[in-house]
């Protein structure tokens, strides 16, 4: 039988001024199960707390109800006091008679009535309370970062510098991501590879970072603090530890000039055995088995093997599966650019001199196919007039995506600026719809491109590009003057829209995190928890969340890292005990609960007999993942899930107490 103690707080005159606290206490004392009801001036004060503790001890209380201020104010204060007397903290309930009564009502009679009601509700609830233990989850203090672009690198370095081991997995043969392909970066025009390469090397040499390049995530299971991951290390055909990166192999490869370079976005060629670019990290080649003659012609060609001094080429190497245990994961899988060939009217793929923004970066780059001299892909001539078209694929719900890709306004302004610097007397035309230049120094940067470099900005889209006598005739609109305009250009650069990395939806499914209709990962809360995914222990960084520029990507990488370091700073991960639990006897295994759970906290559990035969499959709540929202309780058809602290019987008791 319950032994409830009731305390009615005056809160000075804050409550006592409007509520007849004496009467509330008197009424409370009449409720069966209440062994004593007192009123007191300030329950949250030390003497107030001592009164509480004394009564718990003296009257051997099984539950306490305070009629006081909002539980958001002092629930924790009173819970702590209760724990000191050996009472489970979840046996403290608070009737909010300040914010919900004394401060919002004036009629003392009615206010007192309401206060008594609220108190009664809590007394009935606390009678049904059950002890709840907070959940403690052990932590494996090692992090996994997926994606070796700038945000992934930043996250890995920050975590590693915090003294925690990191595994960095990159799909491509080298880390560096998209940023290493860029020439100079807005708005400061610092050279991308100059600031990126040292970071890549730091990753490679960091004692706390284990780097897996040319590797992909194969499987993820477990939960916060306890993830098991399988990484597929694709066969490079090179014994990595022996390779010196001397280059003898790729220099002799007969597939010279036969394979389009991914790094230079098809503007140059690479060999079958190759490093994607000279500053690649690690500087270890990989054999592209889809084009290598050794694999295609039954082992006849082995020129690279013959040329290799340390004999580190092994054509028979197989993919390896590596298993790791980690406590937290950063998903920094990055982005892709939309397919320009969707726009038949722009002739991408048809006209050689219509190129993408990323291709223009490669043309500008000193390490690019033209060594930084701007040349037309068609005839190698230096272009004098370039037309830049913004919003190609972005803000285009018909053929592309409806959202703004955020970086194109800025990189186009940068392109026009760098083009003016590189080719004297040249002219840029930029077709735009709106200019979005909202970060520090951005607006000034764009204005500078117009005012100092003489780029002409036209507000409107381009409808069609024709080829005429080696020129590209760009037919667009200038909506400000209300004119159709035609510009004869030597080259056209399309500012292509940003989309999530191919396969990011599959990755999200593997990780059990939510993603939007485009495939961008969604934050746990768009404003307040931007670094967290919907799943505990998995964090987000970079363009995988949506279009953003380099500074923002770096910030997000650091944010994810700091969240992980914070998580790992404790010995165990603590979760409030108010989570769902399953009655496995009545659960029928329909798993409708799984469909509503936003946290992937419900797994399938097999109930077996002594011989190991599966009797039935039931739902199991993973306490590390459950956030305690209770959606599953409501979804359960057989009433087999309940939420600790908000049990059905508790809520019904509250309602019942109001019966008239």
């Amino acid at each position, binding site marked *: *039988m*319950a*032994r409830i103690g009731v305390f009615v707080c005056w809160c000075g005159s804050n409550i006592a001024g409007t509520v007849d606290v004496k009467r509330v206490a008197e009424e409370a004392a*009449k*409720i*069966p*199960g209440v*062994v004593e009801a007192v009123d007191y001036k300030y329950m949250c004060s030390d003497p107030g707390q001592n009164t509480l503790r004394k009564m718990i001890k003296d009257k*051997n209380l099984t539950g306490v109800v305070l009629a006081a201020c*909002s*539980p*958001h104010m002092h629930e924790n204060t009173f819970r702590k006091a209760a724990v000191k007397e050996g009472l489970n903290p979840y046996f403290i309930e608070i009737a*909010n008679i*300040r*914010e*919900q009564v004394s*401060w*919002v*009502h*004036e*009629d003392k009679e*009615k*206010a007192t*009535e*309401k206060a008594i*009601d*609220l108190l009664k*509700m809590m007394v009935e609830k606390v009678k049904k309370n059950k002890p709840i233990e907070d959940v403690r989850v052990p932590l494996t203090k090692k992090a996994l970062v997926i994606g070796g672009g700038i945000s992934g690198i930043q996250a890995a370095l920050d975590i590693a510098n915090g003294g925690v081991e990191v595994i960095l997995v990159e799909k491509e043969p080298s880390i560096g991501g998209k940023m290493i392909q860029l020439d100079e970066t807005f708005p400061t025009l610092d050279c991308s590879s100059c600031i990126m390469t040292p970071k890549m090397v730091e990753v490679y040499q960091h004692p706390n970072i284990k780097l897996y390049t040319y590797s992909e995530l194969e499987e993820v299971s477990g939960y916060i603090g306890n993830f098991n991951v399988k990484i597929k290390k694709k066969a490079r055909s090179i014994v990595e530890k022996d390779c010196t990166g001397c280059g003898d192999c790729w220099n002799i490869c007969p597939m010279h000039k036969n394979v389009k370079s991914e790094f230079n976005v098809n503007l140059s060629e690479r060999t079958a055995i190759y490093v994607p670019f000279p500053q690649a990290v690690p500087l270890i080649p990989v054999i592209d088995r889809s084009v290598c003659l050794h694999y295609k012609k039954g082992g006849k060609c082995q020129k690279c093997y013959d040329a290799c001094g340390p004999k580190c080429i092994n054509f028979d190497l197989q993919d390896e599966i590596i298993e790791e245990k980690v406590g937290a994961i950063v998903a920094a899988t990055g982005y892709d650019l939309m397919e320009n060939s969707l726009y038949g009217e722009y002739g991408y793929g048809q006209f050689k001199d219509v190129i993408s923004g990323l291709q223009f970066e490669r043309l500008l780059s000193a390490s690019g196919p033209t060594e930084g001299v701007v040349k037309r892909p068609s005839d190698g001539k230096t272009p004098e007039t370039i037309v830049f078209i913004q919003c190609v694929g972005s803000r285009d719900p018909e053929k592309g995506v409806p959202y703004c890709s955020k970086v194109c306004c800025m990189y186009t302004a940068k392109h026009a600026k760098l083009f003016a610097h590189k080719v004297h007397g040249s002219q840029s035309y930029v077709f735009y719809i709106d200019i979005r230049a909202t970060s520090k120094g951005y607006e000034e940067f764009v204005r500078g491109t117009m005012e100092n470099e003489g780029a002409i900005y036209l507000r409107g889209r381009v409808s069609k590009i024709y080829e005429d006598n080696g020129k590209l005739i760009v037919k667009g609109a200038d909506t400000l003057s209300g004119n159709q305009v035609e510009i004869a250009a030597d080259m056209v650069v399309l500012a292509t829209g940003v989309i999530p990395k191919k396969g990011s939806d599959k990755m999200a499914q593997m990780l059990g995190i*939510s993603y939007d209709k485009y495939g961008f990962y*969604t934050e*746990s*809360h*768009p404003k307040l928890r931007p670094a967290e995914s*919907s799943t505990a222990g998995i964090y987000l960084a970079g363009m995988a969340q949506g279009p953003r520029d380099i500074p923002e990507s770096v910030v997000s990488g650091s944010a994810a890292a700091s969240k992980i370091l914070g998580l790992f700073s404790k010995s165990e991960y603590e979760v409030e005990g*108010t989570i769902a639990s399953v009655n496995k006897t009545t659960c029928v295994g329909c798993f409708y609960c799984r469909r*509503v759970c*936003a946290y992937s906290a419900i797994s399938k559990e097999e109930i077996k007999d002594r011989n190991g035969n599966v009797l039935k499959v039931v739902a199991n709540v993973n306490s590390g993942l459950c*956030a*305690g*929202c*209770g*959606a599953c*309780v*409501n*979804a359960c058809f057989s009433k087999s899930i309940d*939420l600790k602290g*908000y049990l*059905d019987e508790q*809520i*019904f008791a*509250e*309602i*019942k107490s*109001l*019966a*008239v």
Partner: protein
Amino acid sequence: MENNIVEDVQNARDEKEYSAGSAKGEDKDKEPRIIAFVCNWCTYNGADLAGTSRMKYAENVRVIKLPCTGRIDPLFVVEAFKKGAKGVLVSGCHPGDCHYTSGNYHSRRKYTAFRDLLSYLGVDINRVEFSWISASEGNKWVSVINEFTNKIKLLPDNSDIFSKK
């Protein structure tokens, strides 16, 4: 310890008398009672804000706090009417703001379907209100409570809501 047992027995006896007593005290002219099921993160905080801002509103509402509107079982609403409530308010975070990502959507979907059932049971669906009130909308809490209370007061007083007319 022994003392406790004596008290317990006394308590059990009291419980019966107490319920009988409160049933006796039933008052026909009593103000209609409204039960509000609210989520812990948005609406409960909104109501707290109304309090700290010392806004005034009708006394009829009794709040039951839950973590999320997604936890609010439609049976709670039925139970509330059975126990004499004249109106039930369900309120949580705005679409897109749910602390638990999607709980409020589950809730909304459930209530769209639930309205017909309530009406079938004989409850005037005007007695059930669904609203989004954020933690910053103390004033909205006040206006929702006042408007809903007025609406309930204007409805014909059929104290036994479950008896089909």
